[in-house]
């Protein structure tokens, strides 16, 4: 890359930055014991980018997700979302959260569950929300258009998680925060869910922060994979993923994919070894 193109890239990166985290630190105190969940984390995410946070349990990836979403206060550093504090963005319904469990309301049907978050704090969002027809199309995209009137207990775990995904996309929020949404699913369902997620994302757009501890999952969904290490929680490396979009499952057999897998595995192992030695 030439010097000129690097500069151009830098300028564009600055203008396109949607999430900007600088020196963020967070310590939890529990029963007198202090846990350094995050220590001086820097991260910037561009508008429209799909970024995964990859790392072992306790590396602070969920904490980082919650700092960005304005769900946790940080002790030090700066977090800006579209140039303002996360709490302000949260009040404007800029975030769509997908938790680890489907967290559906058992007394609402699938269609009512999908619309539930849109109905809360109505009118606070500065953006357009998908109308009924578009929401129905999202349900159809995950194969649930026949199940709009069903209750959550009538669905399997994978189907419930698909409802949870559609609920997030139905918010029309510019930023999607996903906290290991597929962790509780079996491996086969999980592999399919990745492509369903990508399909929804390609349909609606948006910037995604995706927490996972699965290397192949991080690679297949992301533009960039942020590798995190524990004690203290920090970013140890960032890997750019060069696979074309839209992603297809046959890409998982490509040499490029395997190259990413082995590099990420090494990065995770190195930071783990460093931690053990300390």
């Amino acid at each position, binding site marked *: 890359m030439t010097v000129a193109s690097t500069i151009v890239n830098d300028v564009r990166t600055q203008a396109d930055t949607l999430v900007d985290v600088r020196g963020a630190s967070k310590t939890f105190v529990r029963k007198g014991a202090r846990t350094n969940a995050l220590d001086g984390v820097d991260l910037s995410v561009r508008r429209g980018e799909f970024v995964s946070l990859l790392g072992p349990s306790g590396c602070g990836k969920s904490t980082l997700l919650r700092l960005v979403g304005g769900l946790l206060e940080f002790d030090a550093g700066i977090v800006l979302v579209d140039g303002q504090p996360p709490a302000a963005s949260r009040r404007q319904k800029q975030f769509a959260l997908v938790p680890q469990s489907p967290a559906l309301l058992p007394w609402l049907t699938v269609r009512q569950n999908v619309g539930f978050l849109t109905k809360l704090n109505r009118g606070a969002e500065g953006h357009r929300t998908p109308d009924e027809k578009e929401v129905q199309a999202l349900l159809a995209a995950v194969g649930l258009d026949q199940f709009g009137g069903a209750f959550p207990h009538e669905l399997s*775990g994978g189907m419930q998680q698909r409802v949870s995904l559609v609920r997030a996309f139905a918010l029309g929020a510019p930023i999607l925060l996903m906290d290991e949404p597929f962790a509780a699913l079996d491996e086969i369902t999980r592999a399919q869910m990745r492509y369903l997620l990508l399909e929804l994302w390609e349909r609606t757009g948006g910037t995604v922060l995706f927490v996972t501890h699965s290397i192949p999952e991080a690679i297949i969904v992301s533009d960039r994979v942020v590798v995190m290490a524990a004690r203290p929680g920090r970013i140890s490396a960032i890997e750019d993923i060069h696979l074309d979009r839209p992603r297809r499952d046959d890409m998982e057999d490509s040499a490029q994919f395997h190259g990413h897998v082995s590099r990420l595995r090494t990065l995770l192992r190195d930071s783990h070894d460093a931690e053990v030695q300390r």
Partner: protein
Amino acid sequence: MTDTAVSTSASTRPSRVETVSGPQSPGGGGRALAMALAPVFGVVGFLLLWQLLVAALHIPRYQLPAPWDIVRHLASDPGYYWTNGRRTAWEAFLGFGLALVIGVAGGALMAHSRFVDRALQPLAVLIQVTPIIAYAPAIVIWTGFGLKPVLILASLVCVVPFLLNSVTGLRAVDPSVLELARSVDASRREVFWRLRVPSALPYLFAAARISVGLALIGAVLGEFFSGVSKGLGYSVKFAQSRNISLQLWGSVFVLALIGSLATVAIGALERLLLRWHPSQHP
């Protein structure tokens, strides 16, 4: 559960893996009928046994009348039992309603604040463990005769189940759901009415089932002590003083009927409102 209905592209038609309402009764029609009638067998069997024992042991009617005699007695004076039964049912209903309102309001305060919770828990236990029959006369002396002490006693006796169950129920919201609500900055009011109240409903129905019987106890007890001359409690007291065992048992039967009907009504409402709850699909 398997999940084969996942389609990786929009063009693929999803195959339906699960029917929306699962069919039941694997044993066929006869078995289903037997299951539906099962609750009746216990009661009818008990009454038959009673009838036979009274006849076999030659128990005189003034000591213990047989069920059929009691039913015939009821049929001989339906107006009396209708009037007094309506009175007691109304008292119990009002007491139940008062307890529901006070219990849920108190429960909401307790669910909202740990301090209020800790402050009110011992009070709730005190109300629950102190035999109501012991302080019923004291309440009558304090509030005077008439309907007032009856309502106080009927509501006091069933307020604790509503109170404790609403605290538990209002707190029973999945933490992930609460976080989701926070992520879109839902107001406290929205969280209360849209998340907490529906979560509390199954707990409130459980309290209601317990409270039906308790409210009747409170109403009858109130009539015993408050000097009223209406209601089945009064009827029982009067019958005891005159040794009229048929009227005593007749009043008991009508009380049992009122309690049963109320329970059936609550069950029907529960099936309507809690279609989504695991308790409603065995």
